[in-house]
Each structure stands twice: as C-alpha cells, then as structure tokens.
C-alpha cells in the first residue's frame, strides 16, 4: 500500500510512481475532488478543493495506470547557440563549442516535468557528454528565452528569472509563454533547430 503525507489541509504528496508525468497527471486528476496535480522529479502532489480524502489504493494503482492515449507533440524550437557560458561549458567538457552545439541540437528531448517558473519545462534526454553540475553561483537574472543545461536536463527560461544553469543559447522568434499559456506541454518531444 502506497504512503502519502499531508501537504497542509488541501493537498497530499507521495513518491512518484515510475510513469510518465503526462500519464500521472491524467490519472490523478480523475480522483474525486482533485483540482490540480504537480509532478516533480521524484514526488507528486495532488491538490483538492476541500479536505483531501484519499484511498491508498488509488496511489498504488498509479503504477499500472493506462498510458495517456494522447501522445505528446513534436515541437521544433528555432535556436541560436550564443549563450554567455558556451565557451566555459565547452572548456569544462573538454570539447569544442561546435561539438557542444551539435550534441545539444542533435538530441530529441522529452518534457518530463514542469515547475520552477510558469511554463518552464524540464527536458530530459541531454547527451551524457554534456552533463555538468549547476553553476556554483546562480545568476540573479537570466533573460526570457535563454536555453540552458544542468545535470542531464536542458530547458528554456520562459521569463526573466534567477537561474543556476549554464546558458548556452536562446530561442529565436518564439515566446515560451504567451496569452494562451505555455508553448510546451508534458510529454512533448522537443528538438532545437539552429
């Protein structure tokens, strides 16, 4: 039987079952009384309109929840590899700048979780050859549209915000969050096109 903890009196938190975020969101939103769901890297929270009433069997059943029948979309993001950390990243990895750009643009990523800032998508699938720890000193302001990497993730900052990732470029001619909401959704497959 799966465990959960109270996150106040309107939400619960539990360990993330090994399923896609898209599938988890769909399954948890079907629970009675649930109004919102957040899937983080290793935990899930379910938000209720009133005091949560949870059957532990619901959580246990997530491990075998049917996959979301709507597949993620394929999204191409026009990109310019002109970030202020590009040279440092290449040096730290022992590669050329061109290598770094080619590796980053050559991979297909998946929106695995969303968080941090409205519409920010954690893209999994960064080539292991580009793995670096976060910067030791985060920047207080990273401009909207900046492409960054850290660990085995990449992402694009939708808004000006603080940030601790390595800045390698920026998207061109697109907004990551507009009046209709975020450009990327859970499950989308994303490529960067120089």
């Amino acid at each position, binding site marked *: 039987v799966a465990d959960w903890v109270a996150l106040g009196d309107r939400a619960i938190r539990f360990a993330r079952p090994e399923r896609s975020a898209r599938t988890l969101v769909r399954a948890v939103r079907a629970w009675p009384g649930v*109004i*919102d*769901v957040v899937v983080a890297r290793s935990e899930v*929270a379910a938000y209720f309109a009133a005091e949560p009433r949870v059957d532990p069997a619901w959580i246990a059943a997530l491990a075998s929840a049917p996959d979301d029948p709507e597949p993620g979309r394929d999204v191409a993001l026009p990109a310019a590899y002109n970030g202020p950390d590009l040279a440092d990243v290449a040096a730290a990895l022992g590669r050329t700048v061109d290598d770094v750009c080619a590796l980053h643009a050559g991979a297909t990523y998946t929106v695995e979780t969303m968080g941090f800032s409205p519409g920010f998508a954690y893209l999994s699938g960064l080539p292991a050859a580009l793995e670096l720890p976060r910067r030791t000193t985060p920047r207080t302001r990273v401009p909207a549209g900046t492409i960054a990497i850290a660990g085995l993730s990449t992402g694009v900052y939708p808004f000006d915000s603080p940030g601790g990732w390595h800045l390698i470029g920026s998207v061109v001619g697109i907004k990551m969050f507009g009046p209709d909401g975020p450009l990327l959704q859970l499950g989308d497959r994303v490529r960067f096109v120089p």
Partner: protein
Amino acid sequence: MTFTVVRALGLVTVQDLGRRGHMHEAVPPGGALVADRLIAANRAVRNPDDAPALEILGQLAIRAERALEVATDVLPPRAVPVGSELAITSEPRRVTYLAVRGGIAAPVMFGGRGALLCAGLGGLVRARDRVLTAELPEVELPAAPAAAATAPAAPDAPIRLIAGPDFDHFAPGALDLLVSSDYRVLPSSDRVGTRLDGPALPRTGVPEVSRPMVLGAIEVPRDGKPIVLGPEHPTTGGYPVIAVVARADLGRLFSVRLGGTVRFTR
C-alpha cells in the same frame, strides 16, 4: 470607460478567484491574496463571488466617469457620482478589495481574468489607467454566509498550522520555535511569498530537492527565515517545508499589514 485611476500606490491589480487546473504546467493558482475579502466586496454590490475586482495592497484613488456603485470588504456599498473621487487604503490591513457593481471588465487570459504577474498575464494598475466595468448580472445574496471549512478563529488568534511534511530537514525544536515566537511581516513580501522575520529556524544538512509546493506552505531557506507561499508561488521549490498554514487561517495571515506581527500555533 467608467473610471480613471487618479493614484495607485503599492501593488494594485485586477483579481478574481484564480486559475485552476494549470499547476502541472508550472502555472500557480493565482487569484486574490485573500479570497474571502474579494468575495465579501463582491457580495456587497451583488456581484458573483468570482467577479474581477481591484486588489489593493497600498492605496488607490479613482475618479468616476459615470455613476458607480462600489464597496470594499470593509466599507458598505455607496454611490460615487460622476466626476467625484474615491480614495481607498488597505490600512490598517495589508490588502483590501474594491468591487464595482457589475465587476471590472477584464479579458479572459489563460482561463482567468486576474493578473498573474509571474506569468506576464495582466499587469499593475497605474495612475491614469482607464478602467471599464462589466455588466455582470446581479446575484442574490446567500441566505447565510458561506460555511467555513473549519470554525472561524478570533481575529487575533494564532494562525493554525499543519506540521511538516519535511521534518527531516529541520533540527529538533525548529517547529516549537516557530509556534512559540513572534514573527514580523517583512516589507519585501508580495503575491509570491510573505517573508517573515523572527528567530531563524535551524535546518539539518539534508540536501535540498525540488518538490511540489502548495499555497500557504512555509518554506525555509538556508538563512532560516520562513516564507509563506502566496497565490503566485512557484509550483515546485527546493526549500524544505516546515509546516503549511491551515487554509481557513490563510486569509487572516495575508491580511496582517507589512511590519505587523503574526503568531502561529499547531
């Protein structure tokens, strides 16, 4: 156009009851900082509970360009004749709501009419803005006030908490310190977080991980000074949560003026 903003000091925005159902896209619920006060102001002018109104953290003065009927969460309904001015202050509280009969006309943006500054939806209300009112139909007042989820507490009673869940990130006694000390609401507080000054809450060395957050969560950064998450909070965060404010008491907490003192209880 139905009124002109003469003066806006502090943080003045259009707010409704927020946007549900988008937290999985990292979009927080938003909406009124103190939903009960927005509802009270709307009901006073027979608006639907979720009608857009002006949230005032500071001061606002308007000049009517046509006859208006307005109310706040503390001032009863009144008529504002054409050409006359009306000044509202949130003092002695942190926030007040100005509702206009018919509601403020604001476009639906991503499922809500209120400003969500962190997502670039809507913006601050400023001097010289011209504001339109809508014509939402009149709603009959409910026979009885909306039932509170839990028994209402006295206005100055301590704010109730639900302890945890990140107990392993705090040294023994941290929660006792939180509920036995006075905390002051810092002026740097906004709709994202209400920052508190008081005894630092001692943390352990357990590494931070990014986890789902919730409205009212009390996050504790490394400096030990608690931050209570507001309606524009990030949906995930790395600081551990020592406790979450009971939803029934959240409005009382967010109503305490900047510089004011709060006390918590388990």
